[in-house]
């Protein structure tokens, strides 16, 4: 399951190799991603996962709103760890 391409280079998996090994491939972001289904249901589940402690989102130190450009530059340079947020 492919979920991103921060390196700017999508994963390239050879079709014949995948077939020979019986491996399926799917995408959740980008032009090949399948429709996500009911977004409201997914959002509710995702928030519940945070509330219940099923996951605890890793947060990059927040940027001030005025530093949005710096936040973008850091994301583009893979200089962040976890979710990036702006704080007004």
């Amino acid at each position: 399951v492919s979920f991103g391409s921060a390196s700017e280079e999508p994963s390239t998996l050879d079709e014949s190799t995948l077939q020979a090994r019986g491996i399926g491939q799917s995408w959740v972001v980008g032009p090949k991603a399948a429709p996500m289904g009911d977004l409201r249901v997914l959002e509710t589940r995702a928030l519940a996962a945070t509330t219940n402690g099923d996951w605890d989102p890793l947060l990059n130190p927040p940027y001030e709103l005025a530093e949005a450009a710096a936040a973008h530059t850091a994301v583009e340079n893979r200089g962040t760890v976890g979710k990036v947020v702006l704080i007004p």
Partner: protein
Amino acid sequence: MKAIRQYEFGPAENLRYEDVPDPEPAEGQVRVAVEAAGVHHIDTKIRQGISYGPPPMLPMTPGREIAGRVEALGSGVDSSWLGRRVVAQLGLASGGYAEKAVITATSLHEIPEQISASAAVASIGTGRTALVALDLAAVTDQDVVLVTAAASGMGNLLFRRLAGISARPRSAWPAARRKWLGCANSVRISLWTTARPAGPTGSGTRSAIGRSPSCWTGSAETLSTLRRDYWAAVAGS
């Protein structure tokens, strides 16, 4: 209020911090005093005018997810929303990189008091996509799972959720977890080969590897020992 405004597609410097009028909630909308606004990798593509969909109209305020407190209501909105802490995905309308944002009331989710605005923002958009990945991977306790780019906004959610599912070989996991979480942004793994760094075209990746060479070596070793067993991979690149 203060907001980020963009008048042209291009580099990050095009994001300007400016004074703008407060947005007024239309019928069915609320205005939220923003406590945290999410930044996505794709935001940087939209900024450059090269995202998948049609580029947005300019000028614009970017930002497609916010958390904060409802401070004003448009007509027709249930008055009980006033003052509640909420999180919402703004969608293509954007406007999240701001002190205040308007959003349709039906898009709101209330946030429990113990959840920070930042954690709520991390959950709403990145989290929902992570759930789709997890549903597709359908991991069981018999699987060994690789999460690449595990330090990313989405990767860490996948990793933390999957770490809660018993996986084999269990003895290999504790050390591997730390390595992957700590340095996986510098690592790229294919389903069918040994681990390797992103190609020479990924200049950002090269610099990341340069910062943490020991991480890279450690992860590669760990992966080679697990490779025969792994069944599923959840991979960023």
